């Protein structure tokens, strides 16, 4: 009897162990199920490379290129800002900060990770957006630049914590060797620690980028939501994520618009899948 009970429990545990695999597949299947329907009426190339996104006009124009460029622009901006600052912060925390200050800094970073994105979006609307507007004398501060700055900020916890882990896992003997040869602490960091931790840092950067491309609420609130081809950082843009969030509420279930939004979901899923698998490879190569 007990053996039977044990058997049942073990099978149950195995089933739950597989739950994550099941959900990932389920998410992908349902995105495909709803998203692929749009390609009955529009061919994939036109969907991906069409320059006009007017989902409500008659006939609807469903080209997501402006949205892809919107996401790319904002992600590029956020990466340029967040990578140097994030990695520098990780180096400071891992190598330089005294123990007590280190704890405070780590708590601060954890705190940032905990703040809901809608709260950050709200604060960004009230503080960052007017600032950008005034500095560049723009008609509106809701621009790709504002979005990039905010997203860079939101990517920091990911980048800092993973890069810091990578720096910690560099064998101590590397550092001791460099110091013993007369290198300064900075030379050791720059010439020995950073190269040794490079694959982990690369993974940190990739996961940071993944976080940025997937971010929805804050980016919807401060980038201005104009689905046009962007020409500069000082223009309103709209990202893939914001498009889904902003329009799904109005799309009729089963309409072309509804299917098109799911197709955007497929694009996002594939991007995040690719980023996460690659980052995972980098993290494992380290070991």
């Amino acid at each position, binding site marked *: 009897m007990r053996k039977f009970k*044990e058997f049942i429990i*073990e099978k149950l*545990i*195995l089933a*739950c*162990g597989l*739950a*994550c*695999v099941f*959900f*990932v597949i*389920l*998410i992908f299947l*349902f*995105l495909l199920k709803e998203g692929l329907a749009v390609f009955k009426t529009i061919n994939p190339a036109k969907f991906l490379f069409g320059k006009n996104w007017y989902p409500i006009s008659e006939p609807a124009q469903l080209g997501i290129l402006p949205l892809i460029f919107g996401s790319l622009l904002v992600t590029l901006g956020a990466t340029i800002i967040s990578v*140097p*600052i994030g990695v*520098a*912060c990780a*180096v*400071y925390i891992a190598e330089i900060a005294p123990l007590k200050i280190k704890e405070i*800094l780590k708590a*601060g970073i*954890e*705190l*940032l990770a*905990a*703040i*809901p*994105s*809608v*709260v*950050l*979006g*709200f*604060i960004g*609307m009230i*503080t960052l957006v007017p600032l950008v507007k005034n500095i560049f004398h723009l008609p509106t501060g809701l621009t790709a630049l504002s979005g990039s700055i905010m997203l860079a900020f939101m990517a*920091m916890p990911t980048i*800092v914590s993973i890069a810091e882990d990578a720096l910690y896992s560099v064998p101590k003997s590397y550092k001791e060797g460099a110091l013993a040869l007369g290198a*300064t602490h*900075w*030379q050791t960091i720059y010439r020995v620690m950073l190269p040794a931790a490079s694959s982990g840092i690369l993974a940190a950067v990739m996961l940071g980028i993944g976080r940025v*491309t*997937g971010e*929805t*609420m804050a980016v919807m*609130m401060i980038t201005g939501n104009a689905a046009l081809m962007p020409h500069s950082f000082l223009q309103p843009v709209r990202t893939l*994520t914001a498009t*889904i*969030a902003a329009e*799904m*509420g109005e799309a009729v279930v089963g309409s072309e618009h509804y299917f098109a939004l799911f197709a955007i*979901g497929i694009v996002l*899923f594939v991007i*995040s*899948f690719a*980023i996460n698998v690659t*980052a*995972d490879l980098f993290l494992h190569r380290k070991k």
Partner: protein
Amino acid sequence: MRNPRRTQNIAFFFLLLATLLIVVPVGLIIAIIVQKGFPAINWQFLTDIPRQGMRSGGIFPAIVGTIYLVCGAIIFALPIGLLSAIYLSEYSGDNFLTRMIKLAIVNLAGVPSVVYGLFGLALFVVFFKFGASMLSGSLTLGIMILPIIITTSREALESVPYAFREVSLSLGASKWQTIRHIVLPNAIAGILTGTILGLGRAAGETAPILFTVAAFYLPQLPHSIFEQVMALPYHLYVISTQVPNVDEKIRYGTALVLLMLVLFMNLIAIIIRYRFRKKKKW
């Protein structure tokens, strides 16, 4: 000839500067919200329904809605997440299947939150015909926080020394008895930490509940799990972007309540972790 000492000082200065660039704004953001939101908080604000097109009154339905959603999510995610963590830490071998599961967890953690919203809409709202309801929203949030619960629980389980298990097994206990009576009690603090962190995450997310549950304006409490509810993060989004001329005080007040709710949960998690570390028997 460059002076390496000076180079080092300059470099360290910039590293410190970068760190401050991240940490100071965090402090500022919290300070601004607390300072401007605090005057809005009073008994009426916390217990009244929104009035005059959400321009006055309180946020009670949104607070209750968020609490319901979070509880629903945890009821769903905790058992699955915990058992999944037990599988990974106690049963799985170093094989292809384990690799796949770990990869799936990483991916699940990386899926954009709005894609969870789409998935919840397609599966729960449309396919299962739950409609936009607490059930759909809770399940969607539950799947979203699964990776957090699994990862933290697994760490907690794996930190229980191997000798504990060996002693229990050598005394004739079965594998499940060992897990149930030896491993789980010793890992409970870590599991609790993960659960609370998951709760905090679920409470703050907006995108997954946009199309699965959140009501724009619904000044009453739900009677069943098949009804819509208001939720704090969505309410903050609505009053800061969709409704014009809302008093700043109400916006800041709502942001403060949401922030406090989330930070409070994180604080509890940190305290549990800290106290447990001090009490550790091994």
